[in-house]
């Protein structure tokens, strides 16, 4: 009886400490677990895997370091896949800081072994930052060359055969905000739309995957891990390639954190029931 009452009155700081210790332990010495890849990520991977060398995609990256935990591993996994397929990239953003973060991460991945030494203007262009999402999407859909004209990328090999958005194989967003909504409104089915989003945004975006407006969807750190798993399946035998990264590294701590949450809720409820039972009998 007293035990349950004590549990109910448990200092929240003890709970915090347990969470910190669990996560800290798992960060330093993570436990492995096999993955079951979600169908949404599978579709996303398959649609990119179907592209051929020389195809072009638009990658719009709208995350900064404040959601680094989920978005960075997604972005890096996507870049690895595109680079190994030699798919050319038009990199844009509607967040002023995100474009710089994306550029740094892209260059970092480009230098890894097996990623074909991607080079600015030959294999990818930086379309840069666009302040107004609505006008930017409108411009990209209606006249992509005009929209990118001021960015000094038109003469590059990447843009050679791109006269309309439908010449691009896909528009892929890696985002931590609702920046995809304008694309839903304005895309007019010119090309495929794919999304890497944070977990917190998944509930509002799954309806668009269900309706076919998205060809694929990777959600949060699990989505990144799924993508990394698929990369490992495809490229794991080749020497030196980095396939598994933060997505997997964060799964161990996440599992333990969630377990703690579940245990906390269960014990909170049991304690309440027990205390109430004790209170009514005495």
């Amino acid at each position, binding site marked *: 009886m007293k035990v349950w009452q004590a549990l109910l009155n448990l200092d929240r700081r003890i709970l915090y400490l347990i969470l910190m210790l669990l996560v800290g332990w798992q960060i330093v010495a993570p436990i492995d677990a096999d993955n*079951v890849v979600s*169908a949404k990520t599978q579709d996303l991977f398959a649609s990119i895997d179907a592209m051929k060398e020389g195809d072009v995609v638009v990658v719009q990256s709208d995350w900064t370091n404040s959601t680094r935990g989920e978005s960075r591993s997604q972005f890096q996994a996507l870049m690895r896949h595109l680079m190994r397929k030699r798919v050319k990239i038009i990199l844009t953003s509607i967040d002023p*800081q995100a474009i710089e973060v994306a550029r740094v991460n892209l260059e970092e991945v480009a230098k890894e072994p097996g990623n074909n030494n991607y080079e600015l203007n030959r294999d990818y262009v930086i379309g840069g930052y666009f302040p107004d999402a609505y006008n930017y999407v409108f411009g990209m859909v209606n006249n992509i060359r005009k929209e990118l004209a001021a960015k000094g990328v038109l003469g590059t090999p990447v843009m050679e055969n791109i006269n309309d958005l439908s010449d691009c194989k896909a528009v892929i967003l890696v985002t931590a905000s609702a920046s995809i909504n304008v694309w839903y409104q304005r895309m007019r089915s010119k090309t495929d739309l794919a999304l890497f989003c944070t977990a917190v945004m998944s509930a509002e975006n*799954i309806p668009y995957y269900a309706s076919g407006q998205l060809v694929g969807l990777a959600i949060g750190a699990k989505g990144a891990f799924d993508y990394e798993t698929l990369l490992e399946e495809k490229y794991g035998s080749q020497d030196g390639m980095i396939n598994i990264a933060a997505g997997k590294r964060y*799964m161990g701590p996440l599992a333990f954190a*969630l377990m703690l*949450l579940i245990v906390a809720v269960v014990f*909170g409820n049991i304690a309440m029931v027990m205390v109430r039972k004790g209170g009514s009998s005495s």
Partner: protein
Amino acid sequence: MNQFGKLLAQDAPPGTNFWAMERTADPLFSQPIFWWVVGTIVFTSILFFFLSRVPSNFRKPIIVTVVFLCGFYYIAEWLIPKHRLPTGEVVAPVPIIGNWLAGLPAASSTAQIIASMLLVLGVISIFRVHFGRLLKAQKDWFFSGILLLSMFTMIFFGFANFSSTKSRDVTLAELNIAASDGSMNQRWADFARIGGEAQALTNRQNVEQDAFRRFRKGELTKSEYEARLAEARATYESEIQAANEQVDSALSSGQLDSGVAALARGGIRAQQSRSFVAQGQRFVFTDMLQVLDAATFSLIAFFILSAAFRAFRIRSIEATILMFTALIILLSFVPLGLALTSGLESGTFPGNFRIDSISDWILAYLNTPAIRAINLGLALGYLAMGMRILMGLERGVTE
């Protein structure tokens, strides 16, 4: 086109266009555009002065009119049929109106410009409060001082770095011109040397990082690790030398080839990003503001955990449903949770009871329509709110 038409056609060529004026390299105040701008500001300010003198019963109609006209622009843009050709030209039943409606960027710019100005005014009021506290040495004046100090540090580095990137872009554009006619000079040589060094440094750091990672994972011994570091340093020196030789030969031949131009381009970027202001901006933004941002957002994990422990009670059907769904979704997001049912063969009947299948089904067939219904409810609310604002019925706006 008649005079009136000219006045309205905002896309007419310069000279005949009433709205656009040329800008030359002369000093700003000697040009007509400057005086038109000053005149407009003075004229509008006088107009507002008289506006502030109108009797108070005119105030509400004035605001309602302004609000309605602004909203009506988007409604007209939406309802009046028009078509934008691939060339960017707009075809509308009435060309003059079509031109103005195609000025959609102008409308959204207006909103963003006014919002930014109001934002700046908001920051000014933060400044007023804290500067006052600091001057009068009121309680917590020290914290106000810290706040103002970090605010001005950010503003200083932000603006300094902004102008430094602008001049970098000018230099890059000049380099592009030089690269197109192939003329080499000492200036590009200096940049190319910096670029060669920066490139070599990036390569070296990548090797070092990779070696460090392998060493920490136990794939390399300490001596192997140190050997790799030494090797990276040797490669670094030789790469710099190779780049310098490339630059020297370009300098002696007077030809700016594409390889040296690429080096110079890298050098221009590296010189900017190594400048004091760029480093300062990176420090206050990336290494302080973003770190604080991430830390603050992650605090919520703790609060949710403690709230779940204290308040998440299965007292009603609603709470039970909510918790059960959350549990299934949570399990489906971690491999350890998925491992519970991964023995069931997918594609068969029992496969439907795998956690990932259940979770996918819940998300697709229960969560999706529920979210859609919520969205529709919200959308109807927005629509009603929009109508109320446009008709001047929303008292918070007009009074």
